[in-house]
């Protein structure tokens, strides 16, 4: 019996990871579509990211002659790290076997691993754009990471745990109390999400070859299947961040992770992600891109909000 349960749980885990991998480009397409609608354009359609991935996977890869093995390996490491993160985050259920494998601090480490590798690969070729992008990415990263950790610490003080499933469960079952600290943490998390996923106030995901770009500057040298993996893991990263935010700040409807709760959980996740994607598009439409030297100010504000949440929780106990 135990074996059967175990097999069922692992199968549920497999469904969760597959959903994340398959749905990540869809989320990206949905955000882009919403942005297009808000800007009075007709947009490229929900499935455009898939079409692009297919096109890139068909092409032959061109690799610079100066590239080291690191350059070739990085897309796979990036994709692997993001799939790992997707398995750790309780997107569909809180008792899935893999979600206990790592807590939030390890999750931040996983994101840091991906960031270090993409920055190294960007500098590997030695083009000006690549190292420029890498330096900017590290500038944003080293400011965003402490803010993200502080958000997690604030929430874990409320939930008395640093494990994501426990946090999500504790927050889902609390009473209807007002938590100012949680609100601060949520806003800080949103700002980190925008910065980390190269969204508009920090970076513009829609343009190539602009002097202010960050993410696109790093991946300029990649082509074909490597580029496809990188784009896919960028989409997965956005998906993961959204799922973390939903698990922490809107944990309702999250199932336990057995077969019966999987289907409603999937429905809830789809609905919440649709709303989150539309909200993201709205934020991006309303805000203008900042100068790169304003980015520290933006992220310092995120850090400040997270620390204020922590302090307010310690003082007020709420």
């Amino acid at each position, binding site marked *: 019996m135990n074996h059967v349960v175990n097999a069922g749980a692992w199968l549920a885990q497999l469904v969760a990871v597959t959903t994340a991998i398959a749905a990540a480009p869809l989320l990206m397409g949905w955000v882009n579509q919403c942005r297009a609608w808000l800007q009075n354009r007709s947009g490229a359609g929900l499935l455009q990211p898939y079409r692009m991935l297919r096109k890139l996977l068909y092409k032959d890869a061109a690799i610079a002659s100066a590239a080291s093995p690191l350059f070739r390996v990085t897309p796979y490491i990036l994709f692997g790290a993001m799939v790992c993160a997707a398995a750790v985050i309780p997107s569909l259920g809180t008792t899935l076997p893999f979600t206990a494998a790592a807590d939030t601090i390890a999750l931040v480490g996983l994101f840091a691993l991906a960031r270090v590798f993409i920055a190294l690969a960007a500098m590997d070729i030695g083009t000006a754009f690549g190292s420029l992008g890498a330096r900017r990415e590290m500038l944003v990263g080293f400011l965003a990471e402490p803010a993200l950790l502080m958000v997690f610490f604030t929430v874990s003080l409320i939930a008395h745990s640093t494990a994501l499933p426990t946090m999500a469960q504790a927050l889902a079952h609390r009473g209807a109390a007002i938590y100012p600290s949680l609100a601060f943490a949520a806003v800080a998390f949103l700002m980190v999400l925008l910065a980390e996923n190269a969204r508009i106030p920090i970076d513009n995901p829609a343009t190539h070859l602009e002097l202010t770009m960050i993410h696109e500057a790093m991946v300029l040298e990649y082509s074909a299947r490597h580029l496809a993996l990188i784009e896919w893991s960028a989409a997965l990263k956005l998906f993961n961040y959204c799922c973390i935010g939903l698990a922490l700040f809107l944990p309702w409807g999250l199932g336990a992770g057995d077969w019966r709760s999987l289907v409603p959980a999937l429905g809830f996740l789809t609905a919440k992600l649709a709303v989150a994607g539309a909200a993201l598009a709205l934020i991006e439409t309303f805000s203008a891109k900042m100068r790169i030297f304003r980015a520290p100010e933006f992220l310092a*504000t995120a850090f400040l*909000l997270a620390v*204020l949440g922590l*302090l*307010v929780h310690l*003082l*007020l*106990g709420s």
Partner: protein
Amino acid sequence: MANLPLSSQIINLCAAVLLLVSFAMLSQRRVLSLVQLFALQGAVLCLSTITVAWTAGRSELYVSAAVTLALKVLLLPYILHRLIRALNARWETELLLNVPATMLVGLLLVIFSFGLAQPISQLAATVTRSTLGIAIAVVMLSFLMMITRRKAVTQVIGFLAMENGLFFAATSATYGMPMVVELGVALDVLVAMLILGVFFFQIREQFDSLDLRNLEALKEE
């Protein structure tokens, strides 16, 4: 963790919002937005005072909430708006410290005042004692704002925000000061505002700017 009653939750929320508004004022460069933030601070203060009055059954606190609303949400922002338009002083161009550094100093001040308030709030017996730390932090942050700004108008807004913090400290530690003191302070602030308004014009006439560095020279050359 015991669930707090709703009124305490609202007061805690108000306290948190006050702290947030103080930080927003600290980082705001535009003077007109600063005035709006000041009005918002007054509104939150008014709400929390009403909640305290309702919880503790102190009817005189309703009066001070009404005074807060009339003075700090409506009258003073209106006067400040008029002054800023008349003086054409909409931008604070230079801060003494850049914004992230100011924020970090502000965070340290918040930690300091929370530590300071801990022993005091254990002595108090009010429902709102845990917010005393935030009240002290608001006072400190307004101080910091006055220190880091150079223009006379923003320094005055910092002064007014400091008075807000003191008022909040009074309500959270002892359910407000005696009515006479409170009315006196309110009147003081109003008169100070009017006199400072005249001062602004004098300063500008003398030096062609509102930068207070000009006042540091002792002799006329």
